[in-house]
């Protein structure tokens, strides 16, 4: 059975049903969580299928490519979908215990599934215009999620997020229009075949840059990142966590897809630009993070620096580097959203995210401290956690690719990451709580604490397992990287009719 449409169908129906159960938060929750759980199952089976049988293709309504809308899952898409589903389930479970009643009543669960619908469909679609539509679904859902709750900071964050992301979408749409005018098709595989025959390097490069800027805005790469630290720290922590896990990854995925399948003609031009913005992003992001004193702001700036690693790894275009970049995407998604979840748990206990108003958590909540330490060290890249292997692959690839400066930058940025993570640990966990900042009296109930700790612990174990299971994971990522570097299977399966 072809599973490709199921993640979309399940999210769409969960979203619609949650909306129909307006004003009944309890049923919305149950239904929403069932939907997330079903998607996690489907996504894992899909990943297995793709590993076993290669690229999967679904021509919707049997209109064959390049005329109809095609859903395609190669290993890259399947890994991304599995990541989305697992993160969606964990964060959704967490939100059960710490979301405001108001936000739930006004459609949190429905919007959550709409957001996932957009993300799944961006990962699975094989058509550029369809990708635009998926982006918009994702964007509109994320606007509302960001503003839901109506606090002043949220409105400010939503404005900045909206302004830059909308501009990115318009650029993408414009690029798609020009591409259609040039080639008369928007099916990605078909575009790849036809663009290879176009002999007009300046036009293709200009188009490549339009898409680079559009996706760069989504992925928050170096010069376009300002919306991310302006908005990610404002919504409830479950929303920040799912944004950090998935939204920028969609941009990274699109960059990988477009610059490995479509714009591969002039790599010394396009991919060098990607490498440079990746490296600059690493440096600027981590410097921003070191300078901040609010947990979520530190985490947001780190995202920028980590995205730099991913796209730099991709830009090297060797199997090792791309496998490392994919590993990094998965690792970062787990770790970063877990840190946001832990931040949310700290906020529930102390009523603040400011390091100056926190302290003594190590004494009062030793388990939370242990889980935070595992996750933070994984982000900084200490063995045997997943972050270490993600970095070591990229460093090794950069060595082999003869880029000593990049190796130096990556290692230095890793050191700064460690510094800012130890700052959080020092100030929130070790430092005794100053007497003027008493913890807020709303200590969550034991069941709520357990409910928040479950997904946090699960994700912490996941980063540990990803680190310990490197031989297996690396195999999968290496296969995916080879598929990315040699897209002929993708193109043949899409254009060649039934597999």
């Amino acid at each position, binding site marked *: 059975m072809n599973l490709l449409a199921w993640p979309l169908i399940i999210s769409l129906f969960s979203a619609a049903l949650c909306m129909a159960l307006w004003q009944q938060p309890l049923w919305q929750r149950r239904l929403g969580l069932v939907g997330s759980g079903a998607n996690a199952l489907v996504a894992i089976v899909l990943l297995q299928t793709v590993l076993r049988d290669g690229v999967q293709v679904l021509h919707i309504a049997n209109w064959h490519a390049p005329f109809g809308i095609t859903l395609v899952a190669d290993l890259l898409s399947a890994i991304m979908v599995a990541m989305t589903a697992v993160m969606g389930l964990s964060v959704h479970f967490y939100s059960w215990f710490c979301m405001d009643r108001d936000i739930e009543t006004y459609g949190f669960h429905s919007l959550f599934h709409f957001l996932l619908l957009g993300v799944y469909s961006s990962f699975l679609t094989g058509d550029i*215009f369809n990708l*635009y*539509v998926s982006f*918009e679904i994702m*964007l*509109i859902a994320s*606007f*509302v999620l960001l*503003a839901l709750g*109506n*606090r*002043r*900071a949220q*409105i*400010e964050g*939503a*404005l900045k997020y*909206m*302004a830059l992301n*909308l*501009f990115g979408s*318009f650029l993408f*749409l*414009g690029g*798609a*229009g*020009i591409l*259609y*005018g*040039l080639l*008369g098709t928007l099916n990605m595989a078909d575009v790849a075949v036809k663009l290879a025959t176009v002999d007009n390097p300046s036009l293709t490069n200009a188009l490549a840059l339009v898409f680079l800027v559009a996706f760069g805005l989504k992925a928050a790469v170096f010069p376009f990142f300002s919306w991310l630290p302006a908005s990610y720290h*404002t919504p409830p922590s479950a929303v920040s966590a799912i944004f950090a896990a998935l939204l920028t990854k969609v941009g990274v995925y699109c960059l990988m897809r477009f610059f490995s399948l479509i714009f591969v003609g002039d790599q010394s031009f396009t991919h060098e630009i990607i490498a440079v913005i990746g490296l600059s992003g690493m440096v600027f992001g981590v410097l921003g993070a070191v300078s901040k004193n*609010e947990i979520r702001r530190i985490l947001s700036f780190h995202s920028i620096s980590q995205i730099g690693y991913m796209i730099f790894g991709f830009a090297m275009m060797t199997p090792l580097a791309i496998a490392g970049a994919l590993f990094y995407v998965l690792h970062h998604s787990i770790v970063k959203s877990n840190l946001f979840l832990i931040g949310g748990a700290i906020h529930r206990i102390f009523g603040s995210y400011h390091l100056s108003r926190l302290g003594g958590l190590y004494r009062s909540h030793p388990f939370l401290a242990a889980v935070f330490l595992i996750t933070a060290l994984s982000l900084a890249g200490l063995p045997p956690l997943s972050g270490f292997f993600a970095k070591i692959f990229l460093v090794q690839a950069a060595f082999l690719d003869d880029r000593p400066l990049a190796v130096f930058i990556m290692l230095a940025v890793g050191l700064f990451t460690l510094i800012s993570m130890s700052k959080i640990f020092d100030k929130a966990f070790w430092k005794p709580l100053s007497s003027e900042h008493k913890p807020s009296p709303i200590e969550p109930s034991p069941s709520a604490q357990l409910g928040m700790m479950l997904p946090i612990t699960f994700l912490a174990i996941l980063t540990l397992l990803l680190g310990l299971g490197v031989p297996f994971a690396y195999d999968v990522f290496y296969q995916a990287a080879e598929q990315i570097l040699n897209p002929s299977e993708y193109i043949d399966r899409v254009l060649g009719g039934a597999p």
Partner: protein
Amino acid sequence: MQTTLALLSGIVFACGVFLILRRNMVKFVFGLALISQGINMGIFTAGGLVRHRAPLIPSDQDLLAAGSADPLPQAMILTAIVIGFGILAFTIVLILRTYEVFGQVDIDEVRAVDR
């Protein structure tokens, strides 16, 4: 005709960019609307402007006859217009809400206290 429309699309886009660079958020909304229209016009132009027959398949045939116009750009623009309309509606509501909360439409003055 093609050149005129291409230029026009560029001018509309440029006006939109000028407007979204203003600090006043109401002008920002107008800028967004203009950019969206400029892009739509761009797709329309890029899709090819030629006098062809309407792309209708006669009932006794399976395929579109040669020399018909390409209906796809219009379909894409239609989708883009609908999406753009939805986004514009949301943007306006968000800005209205900003005005209610902050009493301002100047983006530089919108500063949340609890940061």
